[in-house]
Structures are given as C-alpha cells and as structure tokens.
C-alpha cells in the first residue's frame, strides 16, 4: 500500500492508503505504487484514479499540479481537483471546477473530455 496525499494550496484534501494511483503526468500517465523510484513530475490536466485489484475505486479530475513520489509516499499538489462521482456529463457545466476553469481552455477542454469520456472507467 502507498500513502496517497492530495494537497491543494488551501488544504489537505485527503490522505489515504491505496494500492495504486494512476496520475496524468506531463509526459504520459503513470501509476504510483509502493517502491517506485523517487520521482518528481508535473501534471497535465486529466484524470486521476485510485485503483485496487484492477478496478477503479475512485476517479477525479485534476487541472494540473505536481507530484512527488517516494518509496511509500505519493504527494500530489493539485491546482484544482473534483471528484467525478459528483459530476456527470449532464451537469458538468454547473460544477464549481467548470466555472473556475473558465478562461483556461486546455484544462477546461480536458475536463469536458474526462467527464464525458473518461480514459479510465
């Protein structure tokens, strides 16, 4: 198990033990698992998922950020994050993230895409 810690500039959003987390790295998605080599990457806007036993447990949209991966710890510094279980394709335009991202076309475009057609289901 790896300790996944998601932090926004305002607060710690959540912290929990997970089997695997898939993150949208700047140069491609990667999975954070225990004993990964120490690694720092920036994130592109995209989908972050928490998985166990090859199934998606939880799914989020992140608008960008940074990730620092150590042996047993994965720290994700996000700009914005939204749980996709709260948002579905019909109401994504009402979501807080949508309004906050207005003006940021790449992130907004990806948000729409992730909501309507998430890469990981």
């Amino acid at each position, binding site marked *: 198990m790896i300790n996944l810690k998601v*932090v*926004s*500039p*305002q*607060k*710690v959003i959540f912290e929990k033990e997970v089997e695997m987390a898939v993150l949208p*790295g*700047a*140069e491609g998605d990667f999975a954070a698992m225990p004993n990964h*080599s*120490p*690694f*720092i*990457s*920036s994130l592109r806007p995209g989908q972050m998922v928490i998985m166990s036993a090859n199934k998606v447990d939880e799914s989020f949209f992140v608008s960008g950020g*940074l990730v*620092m991966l*150590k042996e047993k710890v994965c*720290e994700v*510094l996000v700009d914005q994050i939204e749980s996709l279980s709260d948002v579905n394709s019909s109401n994504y335009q009402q979501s807080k993230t949508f309004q906050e991202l207005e003006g940021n076309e790449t992130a907004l475009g990806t948000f729409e895409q992730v909501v309507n057609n998430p890469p990981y289901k």
Partner: protein
Amino acid sequence: MPNLKELKNRISSVKSTRKITSAMKMVAASKLRRAQDLAESSRVYADSLSFILSSLAGNTKNSSDLPEILTGRENSKISLLIINSSDRGLCGGFNSNLFRNAKNWISEQQEKGKSVKIITVGKKASSFYRKTDLDVIANFDDLNSNDKQLQVSEEIKNKIMELFENNEIDEVSILFNKFVSVIAQEPTYQSLIPLSNDEADEEVTDTSNAVFEFEPDKNELLEYLVPRNFLTQIYRSVLESSASEHAARMTSMDNATRNAGDMIDGLTLTYNRTRQAFITKELIEIISGAEAV
C-alpha cells in the same frame, strides 16, 4: 464640583464603549481561530512545494544554470517590497510596527544605492504610503474572504513576474507580521527573488539520500514551479498576516475592555462621592436654616 448629570452621561458612554470593544474582541477571537486554521492547513502545500523546489535547485550543481528569477540578478538596482497590512484599524501596533520596520528597510536599501518600489496590501498601507514620496506601483485591498486572498495573491504574483521580465525590478521581498503567538506578532521579511533557502537547506540534508528523477526536464519543471512557489509564498504571507491581525486586534480590544472597566470604576466612585456631597450640603443648609429661625 462636577455635575452629576454629566458624570452619569460619561459613565454610560464608557459602558457602551466597553460593550463595543468586548464584542470586537470576541469577533476577533473567532476570526483568529479560522485564520489560524487556514494558515496551518496551507502550510502542507507550501512545505512540499519548497521541498521540491530546493531538491530541484540543489540537484543542479552549477548555480549559473538556474534561471535568473531564482538566483536574482547581479548588480541589482531596484528592489520591490510587498507590504502586508490590514484593511481595518483598531488592532494596536499592528500596522505602525510594520510601517516603522519598512521605513528602516527602505532607507537601508537606499543607502546601498538601490531604489525601492512598493506594492501595498490592505487599505491601511495604501493610505499610509499615498502620503509618502515612495514609488507605490500597486494597491490591493478588501481581503475579507479566503477566495479573495488567493485571488489577490495570484494577481501579485502575475504582477511581479511581469515586472521582473520587463527588467523593472531586480529583487522582491515580502514584509508581513508573522504570527508567533496570540500576544506576539513579528514583522518579518521574506525574500522571493533571489529565493531564500535557509529553511530549504535543512530539509535537503535530511533526505539527501533520495535522488529524484524529474519529468519533464528540470528547466520545464522550474518554469512551472517558480510562479507556483511565488504564489504559495505570497498566499502564505497574506494568511499569516491575517492571523496576526486578528490576534493583535483581540489583544488590544481585550486591553481596551479592561481599561474601560477601570474607568467606569473610577467614575462611579466620583459619582457616588459627589452625590453624597450634595446630600450633605443640602442637609447643612436645612439645619442651618432651621437654627436661624
């Protein structure tokens, strides 16, 4: 002899002042709790970010490889000072301490032959520096909600990035009241350009065994990190300053409430004495009148 009616009016006016100050104290106390929570919860992000930045910068052996915005320019001529004051008064020496400190700092810089530019945060600073002949390039005020604080931090960040790129400034520092405890706030400087790394150094030695891989390469990562770091540092100083403001207001309003209490005691004593004196005087008058008959 003081007039009884007048004394009574004064007592009631001091009483209502005491009510106001004690209410302000309680409001400040509850706001302080929130501000402190915010300051603490934002610390996690700031710490991780500065850790990443320092491990990235520490990883680059030759400091000349690092961008100017981290290391600062040689022969810097113009320094920018961001002053974090409050929007409202009645908070003791909170703002005046800060301005006195800033004055010393500014004259120090000017002795070194640098010119100083200022960005003010909070209404108190903007009205104070409007009267001086210093070069104030921007004002930000009404930081009454957390969203607004973040938004203002973002605007300041954009401003300094733009100014630095246009060679209008060479150095940037922030001045804010650091929250030490409820009774102590300390004016503190933090250098943004060049990056101050006293905290960072310690942490790097802690975990020097972990050698990180970076993706994408360092320069691209730095391009993302540097503005982020400015934003978090500014945001953090704004939050610290707001916690300090409420703490300062709480302490000074507590003092004011106590002083008002003392004053009421004194006035009540005088009131009673005067009343007694009037009664005695009237009695003497009646008795001596009766004797005369």
